């Protein structure tokens, strides 16, 4: 080890800090996209869906967006906001990306939105859709192909209301998104909320809460348990014999978690603006090719990222590949002249989609794999509740 010596070590220190400065040449007539997708920890499953969805979109477009050869730069946010800021700045200034696409989690979006949009770069979120940027905080350089998070929870509230449930038990993780979920659900559900239970994000065992549910005997439960939390809950809920109580959920049973939940999730409900079984030509092509490539059914994370690729393609085509004219480019994105996998799609004034929302139910595909399937349309052409507060400047 001594052989490394003093000079080597010193050189190493400065070289390490300077290493990111290597310049990447930009292809002529190309377009460069920074894809922010978490690749670290268990949430990487969601980041992978996002990454692969966007990649499939590019493949269907022969690697071109609006005629320009597309190149992607993968940015792993590591689920650490300050790491995300550093890496995104590097992508903007060193790699000179023309667009930033992706982001699974709101806290990461919260951290990177200023550096990206203030540099004049357009940011397209394919999943995180916090209310902060839907209302007064709306931003001309920010678009989302997903939804405002509150909307999805309110779909479940409306569905519970429509089903005539009188007493619903609510259980969410004790963090901001969890509290938003409760608020969203209660905005449409008029009946009694028997109890609201907040569990820690690191919860492993739900048996204490399941006993509470059994004791409360509600008409249904509403829950929002993303990722591994949802895997634990769904299996333990089924094992505890509670499945006779309807399981209404958001972001808890989806194609990213269903492989681990297995049959335990059959018949459980979810809400979204897209489902793999939607019968339109672009969706059939997307789902079939995704399944063929990955032997797994895509989830919304992939679908919305796929849509983002199609959206960018349409916008760049509309401005004839001229990425410098930002106003024209924004107008072209706002026009949303593409065929979404969810059918009708347009943007509202706040750059959040105006779209239909569905109640979904977990069912089995012809090939035996599990997926969420459309049960009933709950809202048509829904505008998020914050859009009215947005004054786009």
């Amino acid at each position, binding site marked *: *080890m*001594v052989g*490394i010596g*003093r000079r080597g*070590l*010193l050189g*190493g*220190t*400065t070289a*390490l*800090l*300077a*290493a*990111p*400065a290597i310049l990447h040449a930009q292809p002529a007539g190309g377009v460069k996209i920074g894809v922010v997708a978490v*690749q*670290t920890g268990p949430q990487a499953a969601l980041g992978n869906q996002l990454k692969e969805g966007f990649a499939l979109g590019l493949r269907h477009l022969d690697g071109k967006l609006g005629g320009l050869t597309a190149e992607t730069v*993968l940015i*792993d946010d*590591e*689920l*650490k*906001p*300050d790491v995300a*800021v*550093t*890496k995104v*700045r*590097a992508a*903007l*200034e*060193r790699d000179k990306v023309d667009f930033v696409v992706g982001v699974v989690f*709101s*806290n990461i979006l*919260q*951290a990177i939105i*200023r550096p990206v949009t203030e540099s004049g770069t357009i940011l397209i979120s394919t999943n995180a859709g*916090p209310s902060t940027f839907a209302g007064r905080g709306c931003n001309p350089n920010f678009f989302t192909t997903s939804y405002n998070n509150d909307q999805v929870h309110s779909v479940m509230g409306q569905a519970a209301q429509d089903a005539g449930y009188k007493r619903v038990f609510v259980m969410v993780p*004790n*963090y*901001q*998104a969890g*509290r938003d979920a409760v608020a969203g659900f209660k905005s449409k559900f008029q009946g009694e909320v028997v109890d609201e239970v907040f569990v*820690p*994000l690191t919860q492993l065992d739900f048996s204490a809460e399941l006993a509470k549910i059994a004791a409360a005997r509600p008409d249904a439960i509403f829950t929002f348990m993303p990722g591994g939390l949802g895997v634990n809950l769904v299996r333990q809920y089924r094992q505890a014999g509670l499945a006779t109580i309807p399981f209404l959920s958001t972001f808890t049973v989806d194609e990213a978690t269903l492989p681990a939940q297995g049959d335990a999730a059959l018949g459980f409900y979810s809400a979204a603006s897209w489902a793999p079984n939607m019968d339109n030509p672009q969706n059939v092509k997307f789902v079939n090719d995704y399944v063929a490539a990955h032997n797994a059914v895509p989830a919304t994370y992939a679908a919305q990222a796929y849509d983002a690729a199609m959206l960018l393609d349409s916008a760049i085509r509309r401005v004839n590949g001229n990425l410098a004219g930002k106003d024209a480019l924004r107008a072209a994105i706002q026009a949303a002249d593409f065929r979404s996998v969810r059918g009708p799609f347009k943007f509202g004034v706040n750059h959040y989609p105006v779209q239909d929302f569905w109640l979904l139910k977990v069912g089995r595909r012809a090939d035996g794999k599990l997926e969420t399937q459309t049960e009933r349309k709950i809202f048509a052409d829904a505008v998020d509740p914050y859009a009215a507060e947005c004054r786009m400047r």
Partner: protein
Amino acid sequence: MMRGVWLPLLALAALAIAPLAGFSASYEMTLMARAMILAMAAVSLSFLVGGAGLVSLGHAASVGVGAYAVAILDANGFTDAAQVLPVAIGAAAIFALLTGAIAIRTSGVHFIMITLAFGQMAFFTASSLSAYGGDDGYTLYSRTEVAGARLLENRLAFHYICLGLLAASWAVASMLLASRFGRVLRAARENAQRAEAVGFTPYPYRLVGYGIAGAMAGVAGVLLVNATEFVSPAMLSWQRSGELLFMVILGGVGRLWGAILGALVFVGLETWLAELTPHWKMIFGPLLVVSVIALRGGLAGLVAPRHG
């Protein structure tokens, strides 16, 4: 004590020249600022670990308390450094003194665990602050102002402020350790019974040392929140405390400047490896293992090995 000290001085000099030598793009500045701020936090932790023998696994909480003080003041319209700094430093010091008062009663692994416990409590408290974004975190309206001037918005100014404060915290910590106060701390670390036998009760000295380290971490917190214009409970997580500890160990316990090297190398390696492959932890992990097994005394031990 002074052998090998040219190396961190050289590193600081390199950081001082860097923005003038072409490394002035904002991501490079962000990266360097992050490295310097973490180095500052690592120095304050090294003061505890190497100086007082107090291995804290909750040091990120002190950084976080300082950062959250800035955010809470920001939300209430106070952004001037004259108000922000004293409050943030005071809050971090008080947090350290309160938790330290209990923690210092224990020693060894138990001290590690009890500081972890307090760190976790701070983490869960920050996560439940829904007025300040809860788990999502809080985006600052504006960076801290110095006498009404938006000095910190200027990247170059911010760079040199970070550098200056890093050098200052190194100097302050060194002076403290060299003082009579520091000698008592070190004597108590080597042999608590002997220190007591010659008439010193280590407890108050350790507590004051713990408070000082907390205050210094608070300063790092103020800078960190200003660098990212964002604060979230993730800043207080035990993994972050662990990372700080690793910077200290990597650099070499027992030399304050080792922490500076450790932090720079840690941030540099992390960034560089992450550029190479998304599976960079497959390389980083074994690298840690090898560096521990091969490098006794950390990086500092490499340039200035200790002989009895």
